[in-house]
């Protein structure tokens, strides 16, 4: 999103509407901000009312340019307290309830908004996305998938439609095999995700389009269809190569690295990702991300010395919460190489580091999961 959407020249006309703040959640200097405004995923986009220092609007996930412009309008209206329609008021209430983690009440408010939606309501897509995300968050997977099937025709062909179909499919895939509705819901939502993945006019950024392919691959995995998975991975690899070749800047090209590295690893062709990751490391020599992915690629190739050398470079550049993740992956490298003592020591280092992080970046569930992993070694 930072490579393609926030660099889109059409956004320049909004420059005076807000004060713009970028917050790196890995930077320890931002821990006080993160205590005040918790972040559960990135990117998280927020509109903050400076008079009350409260979140007027929160959106988790990347957004296309039209989605972002809608968020600007919604956020500004919320802060201004503009006279609103019943549907607008209900969606704003849903946002507030979701911000307060009152998911059941947020779901009711979303349904009210959808029921009261005027014809051509510009916020319908976001209301549908918020409802499906809230149902999934509440673990009502059948309700999530069923409502996604019902709402999808009203948002098809848009970035919101892709979000509704994709989240709905993730819910359908969590249903048990014996659940009667599972097959029909999965089939309908797989078809919808496929439509959006192939629709060049829905405004999706390529990263989100690639994520749709990963969902389709997940559906084939659940069906134990190895040939289907391979076919989708090859299709995705071809798409990503084409888009990366057309990138205008190193940052844009690098934005495809993760998906290309992952798809080549899953195809058993990790060696294909080495040249592009090396190129990105040359382009951005202070960034820890390229050597981190290089270490994963070398690990998939069972070249553990090269993987550890890349991990060394990533460790030398990383700070904040991401350091825990780099250490955790490094521990996996030692395990794969058969060095249990170093694997355990590295995991202990990861736990100690994670426990030393300030409030806002201190992640107890992560620490607990690392301790469990250490116990099993």
């Amino acid at each position: 999103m930072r490579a393609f959407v926030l660099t889109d020249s059409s956004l320049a006309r909004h420059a005076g509407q807000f004060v713009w703040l970028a917050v790196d959640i890995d930077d320890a200097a931002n821990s006080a901000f993160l205590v005040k405004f918790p972040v559960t995923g990135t990117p998280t986009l927020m509109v903050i009312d400076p008079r009350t220092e409260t979140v007027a609007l929160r959106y988790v996930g990347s957004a296309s340019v039209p989605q972002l412009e809608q968020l600007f309008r919604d956020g500004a209206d919320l802060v201004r307290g503009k006279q609103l329609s019943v549907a607008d008021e209900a969606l704003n209430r849903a946002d507030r309830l979701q911000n307060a983690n009152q998911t059941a009440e947020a779901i009711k408010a979303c349904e009210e908004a959808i029921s009261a939606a005027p014809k051509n309501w510009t916020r319908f897509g976001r209301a549908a996305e918020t409802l499906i995300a809230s149902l999934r968050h509440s673990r009502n997977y059948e309700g999530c998938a069923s409502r996604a099937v019902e709402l999808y025709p009203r948002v098809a062909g848009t970035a919101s439609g892709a979000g509704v179909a994709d989240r709905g499919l993730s819910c359908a895939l969590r249903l048990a095999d014996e659940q009667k509705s599972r097959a029909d819901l999965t089939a309908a939502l797989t078809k919808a995700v496929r439509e959006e993945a192939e629709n060049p006019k829905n405004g999706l950024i390529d990263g989100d389009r690639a994520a749709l392919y990963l969902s389709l691959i997940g559906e084939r995995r659940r069906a134990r269809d190895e040939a289907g998975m391979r076919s989708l991975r090859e299709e995705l690899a071809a798409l990503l190569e084409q888009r990366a070749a057309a990138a205008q800047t190193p940052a844009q090209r690098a934005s495809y690295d993760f998906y290309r590295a992952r798809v080549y690893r899953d195809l058993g062709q990790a060696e294909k990702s080495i040249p592009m990751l090396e190129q990105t490391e040359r382009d951005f020599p202070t960034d820890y991300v390229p050597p981190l992915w290089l270490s994963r690629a070398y690990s998939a190739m069972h070249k553990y010395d090269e993987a550890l050398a890349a991990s060394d470079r990533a460790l030398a550049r990383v700070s904040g919460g991401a350091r825990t993740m780099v250490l955790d992956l490094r521990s996996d490298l030692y395990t794969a190489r058969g060095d249990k003592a170093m694997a355990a020591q590295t995991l202990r280092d990861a736990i100690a580091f994670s426990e030393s992080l300030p409030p806002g970046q201190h992640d107890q569930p992560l620490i607990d999961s690392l301790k469990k992993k250490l116990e099993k070694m």
Partner: protein
Amino acid sequence: MKRLLILLLLTAIPAFAKEVVPFIDDDYAKALAQAKKKNVPIFVDAWAPW
């Protein structure tokens, strides 16, 4: 955290894109002071470099 990690992985890009709006980096106090002075809301992009 697993969900956060997955989200981070799926949005992975290095931290060097040139935005077209004037972002203040990692300084909430400065953003808050400017927003109060200009009487406009703050738009926040909370991101991670990987």
